């Protein structure tokens, strides 16, 4: 039996994001891709699928740093990948990655999402070099999944994807980005 809902694309980035290269946390989306979600948009059970492709650059990621993705709504972190330990196989420019996050609304009002995802790349701790097949890192990394931080779904909120890293060299760049409401 159908629910009379459909998959709707909320945003698709027309250009790549900024090159994120500094220590700390910053948005990895172009401003036009930071879509505003209207008030009362979410219902319990509504799911968002966030997909991104991109690249990380320089060997510095392989020297003990970590990378971490955050999905935020109105500045509230609703999904945290937790710090992903980068391995030692990066060593070169523009290593491709794929990021896929599924968020399911568990509560509204003071709202929250259950979230899990995958990150496929050649810089993760168990990955092979870029010329070989890769393993898949499950997110949140190395931790049981749990609902994220709360946000107020009764207000409009901007959806953003942030990235944080703990070494001051190297860059991350989003090439493609889409958000779909899948029901």
């Amino acid at each position, binding site marked *: 039996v159908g629910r009379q809902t*459909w*998959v*709707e*694309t*909320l*945003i*698709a*980035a*027309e*250009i*790549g994001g900024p090159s994120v290269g500094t220590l700390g946390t910053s948005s990895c989306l172009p401003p036009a891709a930071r*879509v*505003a*979600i*209207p008030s009362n*948009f979410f219902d319990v059970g509504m799911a968002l699928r966030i*997909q991104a*492709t991109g*690249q990380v650059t320089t060997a510095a990621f392989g020297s003990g740093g970590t990378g971490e993705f955050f999905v935020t709504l109105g500045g509230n972190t609703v999904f945290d990948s937790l710090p992903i330990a980068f391995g030692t196989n990066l060593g070169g*420019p*523009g*290593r*491709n*990655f*794929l990021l896929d996050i599924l968020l399911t609304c568990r509560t509204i009002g003071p709202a929250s999402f259950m979230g899990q995802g995958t990150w*496929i*790349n*050649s810089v993760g701790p168990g990955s*092979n*070099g*870029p*010329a*070989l*097949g*890769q*393993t*898949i890192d499950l997110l949140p990394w190395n931790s049981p999944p749990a609902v994220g931080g709360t946000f107020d779904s009764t207000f*409009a909120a901007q959806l953003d994807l942030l990235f944080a890293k703990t070494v001051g060299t190297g860059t991350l760049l989003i*090439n*493609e980005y*889409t958000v*779909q*409401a899948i029901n």
Partner: protein
Amino acid sequence: MARQIWVETVTTSEIDGPTLTAIGAASMLPNAAKSTFPAATFDVGKVLRITATGRVSTVITTPGTLQFDVRLQGNIVFDSLAITPDPSAAYVTVGWYLEIFLTCRAIGTTGNFFGAGKFACTDLAGQPAGPPKGALVAMLPFNTTAGVGANFDSTNPNQFDMFFTQTVATGSLTMHQLAV
């Protein structure tokens, strides 16, 4: 805030594609799956997600390479580049799963897509010498930074096609399922 657009399936395949055994590039789709996009279908920011599954066989030691490309009216808008199978063992009709994510970056007579994807299979270099062997994932384009593909003319109709290229005649590939 919604854009009042929805996900639409452009084409699926009701049957397998041809079993490809020869060296060189050849379409891996059955003719009925080569649907045609009307002129001016694409806008900047429109995304195509291509999912395909199938089976592949390669020999030990000299398996050659595996390469997929997406064509619009013969123009290669995405190229996986040559993927290295596992040379440490022979594989016979093992499954594969391909997903390609294309975002339109330009339209007109010089339209193009930015593309990336993944090819999941047990037959990929990087496997341990012995079992157990889980499937690995090749990031596409393989071992190369992603970028925009070749131009195509979005002001004309464009027939969609996917080609597979192998470099030895000892392997084979068959596509079983396709969804665009």
